[in-house]
Every structure is written in structure tokens, then in C-alpha cells.
């Protein structure tokens, strides 16, 4: 589904990603871990098409298409979803209105009829249950005055509404208490299917107690320096990131 080869990217001339290779197949959950500043969130942003990141080398194919050729909105319409680390606020625009615009633009791109108000509302009701979303939040301005937990929950709710093939969760666990974490993880797990895949970007292991990854990758200084099964996450939790740094240093010396 997603194939990243030798991806290099920089911000304002500073290289951040220095040769990422990653294969994600349908039905898989991948965790991307690493110390602060290693390039985890940059990878998520580059995949979503954020303008300020410049891809300098390498390729990314998504469902057989050249992802890097697509505009951010077309990437989304093709089924790539990014749950933001810091979801933005849009005053005066209700979540409902926002999502209806989004869902119908995606449907239009896929040659489907737009959903009418009734069908849309019943779809919302169904998906709200997944993340135990309070209906009141949906008539309020998007993310405005939402607590940290509500914002993250809203991201997963949007994910449920848009039914992407590839979901990237960028530090979705940051700022969540344990109950909210469980709700969010629960939502993600219920949305899992053999046809879609999830990439979880996180600094801590704790989210991975709830969303069990098939593979764990460690990014350090813009490269994936170690990959392994879910146990790797536990090892990182126990030993921290220093031994990885040492290992990398050992290789290069």
C-alpha cells in the first residue's frame, strides 16, 4: 500500500529526513518511535504533503501511485489521513459543516453522489459512538475551546467519518489522560480492517499497550535505524533511546 524508498526531506534547507525506507501493507499497524527531533513528525507531514517540507530525494508510492505528485487534498481523497498532533481551530465553522464539506468533496473525487443531510447525520451518529463523542461538540466551532482530549478524539472521529486506507496518527497520545487514551485507541482498533493500514507515530510506549503494532521502527537522525516486532517498543520503554544512539554511533565509528 505504502512504499517509501530512500526518502530525503528538508525544511528551509536543513535536511531532516536522510533516507527513510518503509513498506506498509494492508491490514498492518506500524509504530514509528524515536527521540524528540529525530524526524518522526516530519515524516508524517511529508506524507500528508505539507508545503514547507521539501523532498530532495527518494520516492513514495501509495496504492501504486506516486504520492509526491499529488496535492495535499488529492492525497486525502486517495485515502491518506493524518491525525494531527496539534489540530487547528476554525472559528465559526461547526465540526458538522466542516466534515460534510470534506466527506462530500472526497466522495465527489471518487465519483460518488454527495450525501444528503439525513444520510450524513445518520453516518455521524454511527461514528460518534466509536469515540464516545459528545454530540454537543459537533455543533460547536471546529476545535475551538476543545480540551486537548476532545481535540484528539475529534481527530479520530474524523478518521472514522472519512474511512481512509492509510491513517497516520501523529503523537495522538500526547496530552491524553489514560481514559481518553483508551477511548482513542479503542476507536482506532475498531476501524482496523484487512483493507486499511495504520502508522502510529509516538514517543512513548503506552499507546502501544492499546494499539498493538505489527512492527515497530525506530527513527534516529532522519533514518530508520532499527525495526522489530512489538517487543521492541517495550525494550525502548525500559532502556530509553540511549542504547539505540550508542548502537548507531558504534556502527559509524
Amino acid at each position, binding site marked *: 500500500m505504502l512504499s517509501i524508498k530512500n526518502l530525503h526531506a528538508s525544511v528551509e534547507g536543513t535536511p531532516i529526513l536522510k533516507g527513510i525506507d518503509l513498506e506498509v501493507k494492508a491490514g498492518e499497524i506500524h509504530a514509528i518511535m524515536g527521540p524528540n527531533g529525530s524526524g518522526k513528525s516530519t515524516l508524517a507531514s511529508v506524507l500528508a504533503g*505539507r508545503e514547507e517540507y521539501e523532498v530532495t530525494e527518494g520516492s513514495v508510492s501509495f496504492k501504486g501511485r506516486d504520492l509526491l505528485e499529488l496535492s495535499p*487534498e488529492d492525497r486525502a481523497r486517495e485515502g491518506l489521513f493524518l491525525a494531527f498532533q496539534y489540530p487547528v481551530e*476554525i472559528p*465559526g465553522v461547526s465540526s458538522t459543516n466542516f466534515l460534510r*464539506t470534506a466527506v462530500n468533496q472526497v466522495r465527489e473525487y471518487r465519483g460518488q453522489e454527495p450525501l444528503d443531510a439525513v444520510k450524513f447525520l445518520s453516518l455521524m451518529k454511527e461514528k460518534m459512538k466509536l469515540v464516545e463523542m459528545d454530540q454537543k461538540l459537533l455543533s460547536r466551532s471546529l476545535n475551538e475551546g476543545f480540551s486537548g482530549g476532545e481535540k484528539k478524539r475529534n481527530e479520530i472521529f474524523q478518521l472514522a467519518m472519512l474511512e481512509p486506507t492509510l491513517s497516520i496518527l501523529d503523537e495522538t497520545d500526547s496530552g491524553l489522560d489514560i481514559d481518553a487514551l483508551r477511548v482513542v485507541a479503542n476507536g482506532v482498533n475498531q476501524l482496523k480492517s484487512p483493507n486499511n493500514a495504520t502508522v502510529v507515530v509516538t514517543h512513548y510506549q503506552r499507546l502501544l499497550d492499546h494499539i498493538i503494532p505489527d512492527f515497530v521502527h525506530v527513527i534516529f537522525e532522519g533514518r530508520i535505524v532499527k525495526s522489530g516486532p512489538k517487543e521492541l517498543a517495550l525494550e525502548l520503554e525500559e532502556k530509553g533511546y540511549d542504547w539505540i544512539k550508542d548502537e548507531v554511533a558504534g556502527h559509524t565509528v
Partner: protein
Amino acid sequence: MSKDNQILEQFTSKEYEHGWSVDYEADESATGLNEDIIKWISAKKEEPLWLLEWRLKAYRSWEAMTEPEWANVHYPKLDFQSIKYYSAPKQDAKPKSLDEVDPELLQIYERLGISLKEQKKLQGIAVDVVLDSVSVGTTFKESLSKLGIIFCSFSEAVNEHPELVKKYLGSVVPYTDNYYAALNSAVFSDGSFCYIPKGVRCPMELSTYFRINAANTGQFERTLIIAEDDSYVSYLEGCTAPQRDEHQLHAAVVEIYAAKNAEVKYSTVQNWFPGDKEGKGGIYNFVTKRGICAGDYAKISWTQVETGSAITWKYPSCILKGDHSIGEFYSVAVTNNYQQADTGTKMIHIGKNTKSRIVSKGISAGKSQNSYRGQVQVMKRSSNAVNFSQCDSLLMGNQCGAHTFPYIDIQNPSAKVEHEATTSKIGEDQIFYCNQRGIATEDAVALIVNGYAKEVLNQLPMEFAVEAQKLLALTLEGSVG
């Protein structure tokens, strides 16, 4: 930021959709302004002598005035002697009803999406249409007159209801008020007149549609709305003009009189030609609008969506004379390219327990300048006056400007006055967030801008709100890529 600049450049590719004009035979005054021209206009309109005298007094006081320069707008001085003050489509005889109006003229309005046929009733809107200097027709006159409502062109009102016109004309905006009001009083050619009798709730929206067609002509219309005790009316005003290289002057006056417990809602969607991308052409929109809540518990509410005009100079105001009277001003002003807007309101609290509310949302894009100018005045005898003002500015790109000039003058210590102001930028983050959910950039901007202006748009009657939303998106179209 490079993206912002890119966004900005693409933003300015929008074209004005009402820029066409139609050739018809016109009855025009000579160019320039003097007492003879005013006499000519008055004779043309077969006016009574008192009105001609009033015009001449206005002209003389205008001659003694100087053009105001305090507004935050810049333009070369106008040459008032190069303007034609009257232009009307030639018609053989005065049409008695819409059926007799030249179909070619009606077509102009069809093309603008305004049906003058009575089927329009389905939408519950009665329309008076003003083309250049004259009213070409008013719909639903008969059904409204059964309720005692008078809705007709100003000229007709002068002839058929002279006592009302004489009593109220200039009572809210005297000709000595300001430079453009004086000019309008001297040369105004037509406009709409509306009278709602005591206790009547007008069952449909009344509206006037102004269209400038002729070149080198100014449009000077006058609207007078009188709402007697316990009455209600909602009034809409729309305007467009052809795309021309030279600037054209539009100096209108609107007067509203609200008696005891009367409510008048006045909504404007102003879409005069704004000039092209380089700032060439466009309408100078120098307008005086004022209402008086003369009786206790009266309420006047102004809502405006200003998207057009090269320069806008406009401060719809309320004089809150009656005790417990209420004044409201809701405004969205959008400027793009080289447009300049200096707009706001005045709330004059005279009566006791009077309330006013100001919500102003400015949106600036391109190289435009957008100023809010508002005055809240609480007079000595106005105890317990309450005002709330909120002035927000939204900037798109980094070549435009937003300014706020609030004036507050409180002479009674019991007054409660609040003023809030914010300035924000449409964030790249917001647009990217929308993109990431599959929303195209143009639609993202429309969504964000409409969300920002929502509080004001909500004040508009339904049909108008939808139009206004589209217009906002259209004005900003092409600005973000």
C-alpha cells in the same frame, strides 16, 4: 512566507461578474453641476416648488462645504463638473405598471437574476428597481397597499404622498449633514419610498435593487423608510454596476424613521464594481445612512455585506432617541486588490436605557486597505445606556492593511460600554488542515471566511444570506491556490 505570497498572487485573479453594460437610448442632463442643472432635474421630474427650493438650499450649502478628508482612503480629487447628474432610459410614456415597462430594461434585471415578474412573490420579496437615475418598476404594490403599506419609487411618493415626504425628507439626514449628503439632496433623482402604517407587520421583504448602467454618470438615490408605531419591516438593498475604466460616483442617502415600538431591519449586499486587479475603475461609494429610533422601544438594525466598490465611505448609524430603544450594526466588509473601505457606524444614545450592539468583521486581501471607524456617544440624559462593540479584522497575505478607529464619548456615568477587537490571519495551518481532509484550497478559504463572518451573515434574511456567502467566496476567489 513564500506560500502566503503565492496564495496572495493567485487570489487576485477574480473577475467581476456583473461588469457588462447595455446600450439604450438615454435622457441625460448636461455634464456638470449648477443651479440650472438642478432646476432641469426638478422640472424633468415635474416636482413641486417646495422640493426644488429644498434642493437649491442643499446645493448652496454644498457649495460652501469642502470634501471630507478624514477618512483613511486615498484617491485623486473628484471633478464634480465632469459628472452627469441625471441619466434615465428613454421611455415614451411613463409606464403605469410593470407590464408597460420596456422589456429590454426588464431583461437587464433578469440577467442580474432579479425577476420583476410577480412570480417573485413565491420568494416573498417585493422589489423596486432603480436604473441609473430612475426607478423602472416596483413589484407587489397592490397587494402591499391593501395593508396600507406604501412601497414605491421616491418620485412617485413626491407626487402622491407629498405630505409624508415633506414631513420626513431630511429629518434624519439634513442636507447640512455632510458634503455627500448635501450633494445628494441637491441632485438626487430617484430611490425608494416605504411607509408602514401603525400596527402593521410587513408580510414580505421589501427590496431595492440599484444598477448603474450609463457611463460618466453619478448615481444619487434617496431612500426614505417610515415605520409608524408598533410596525415592522425588513428591507433589503442590492447593487451592481458595469465594469468601466473610469471611476463613478455613487452618493446615496438612506433615512429611516422608527416610531414607538417599531422595528426596521435594513440589510445591504453591496457589490458595486470594485475596479480591476490594477485598481483601475470602480465605484466611489460615498453613502450616508442613518436611522432614528424616535419613539420608545423602537429598534433599528443595520446589516451590511460590503464586497464591491473601489472606495467605500459609509457609516450606517442609529440615533437612539426613544427610551429603551435599540440600535444594531452588523457588518462584513471585504476588500481585495486595490479596494479601500472606511466603514463603521455611529450609535448616539440620547434616550434612557438605550442599547446598541456593533459587530464588525473586516476581511482584507490583496493590496487593499480596510478600516473600521465607529463612534459610540452617550449623552448626558441617557442613563443606563449599554453598548457592546466587537471589531475583528482578518488579513490574507502581507500586503493589505486593517485599521480600527473607535471613538467613545460618554457623558453619563451610568453607561456600560464594552469594546473588543481582534486581528488575525488566515493561517496556512488552517488551510492545510482543510486540505488534509480532502477540501480544496478555494473551498477551504470560503469555509474559513464564512465561519469568520457567520455572526453577521446570520442576521441576513435567508435568501440573502446564501447570496452573501457565495459573494464572499467569489470576491476572494483565485486569491488562494
